[in-house]
């Protein structure tokens, strides 16, 4: 059984869906990637969301990033994740049985919204599994 996880030879990308500051900060590190040859309308691996961005566009960005096979990690501000919670949970359902759950979604806090574990789709499961044992 060959490895199912390898992905890209030269290494997989990270992607960011966030507010302007978050995206700027991460772009500084060099995770940004633009490939004009991609067939999706979104040629880059980052998407800035501000108060005027329609929800459909955010959902679309999420879908594009999760369907690509070269993105291993998707960073998303939690307050944005909350707005597209439905699509997020759908994605988790779909990825349930697979042993190759790429990309993995990381909900991160932003300058304006601190992190709340209770809203995080994945962490609620972690909590549920840990809860009874902590007692």
């Amino acid at each position, binding site marked *: 059984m060959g490895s199912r996880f390898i992905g890209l030879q030269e290494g997989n990308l990270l992607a960011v869906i966030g507010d302007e500051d978050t995206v*700027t900060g991460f772009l500084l590190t060099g995770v940004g990637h633009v490939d004009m040859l991609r067939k999706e309308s979104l040629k880059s691996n980052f998407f800035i969301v501000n108060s005027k961005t329609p929800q459909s566009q955010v959902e679309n960005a999420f879908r594009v990033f999760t369907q690509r096979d070269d993105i291993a990690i998707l960073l998303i501000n939690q307050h944005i994740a909350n707005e597209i919670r439905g699509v997020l949970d759908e994605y988790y359902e779909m990825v349930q049985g697979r042993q190759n759950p790429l990309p993995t979604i990381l909900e991160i806090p932003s300058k304006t919204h601190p992190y709340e574990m209770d809203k995080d789709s994945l962490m609620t499961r972690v909590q549920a599994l*840990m809860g009874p044992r902590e007692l």
Partner: protein
Amino acid sequence: MAQARYAVFATRMALTIYKGKLKGAIKGHSLLKRKADALKIKFRKVLKDLMENKMALGGTMRDANFSLSTAKYSAGDFSESLKESVESASVRVRIQEENVAGVRLPVFKQQSEDIGSSMQLLGLGKGGQAIQKTRQSFLSALEVLVHLASLQTTFVAVDEALKVTNRRVNALEHVVKPKLENTVSYIVTELDEREREEFFRLKKIQEKKAKAIEAAEAQKNAESLVEAQLRLTGQFTNEASEEGASMSMGGDNDLLY
């Protein structure tokens, strides 16, 4: 449900075969249980790591964001030129595999190449130092995040593997093993029953034979007895018939035969 067994002809060969299968099922069951235990331990460890790291994330991001605010203050709004300068990612993530109890688990390893040239220019302009600092703090945040992502993917994979393994353990314990045990005991019972039947039949036959022999013997004895008697009475009958003849001819009318 406890009486479920495999449909077989109860032969000695079937007995050997099914005894072998039962042994296999028992061994498999204990091996799988050990795998499940190893996975459980790993699972708990991953859960703990995940919780701890996620809680710490808030602080890391706060620091990074603070750096950014400082940089924006010094250098102005550089986000536009930054966006323009993006070409090929210099930070990527490699997926490696960790093997735990026979299960392949994904682990992310960060790898960086040199920063693109256009991005380097940013560090040189106004407020360049602040920008560099911001880059550093976001890079540290990134390290933490990549580690977190690893933990998350591992968590999902272990969770799934644990579920599958537990299912197999339960299936062996509650379905396969009992079925095999029932089959073996059925075969044994049938074979015993058959032996007893054989034995019983043999006994009956022997009895009959013995009876037949007895009967034949008795016949023979009876016949020879009769012969002997006949021989004896024959003499008497001859004498008696002479007397009788004379008597009847003489005519003693008092004797009524």
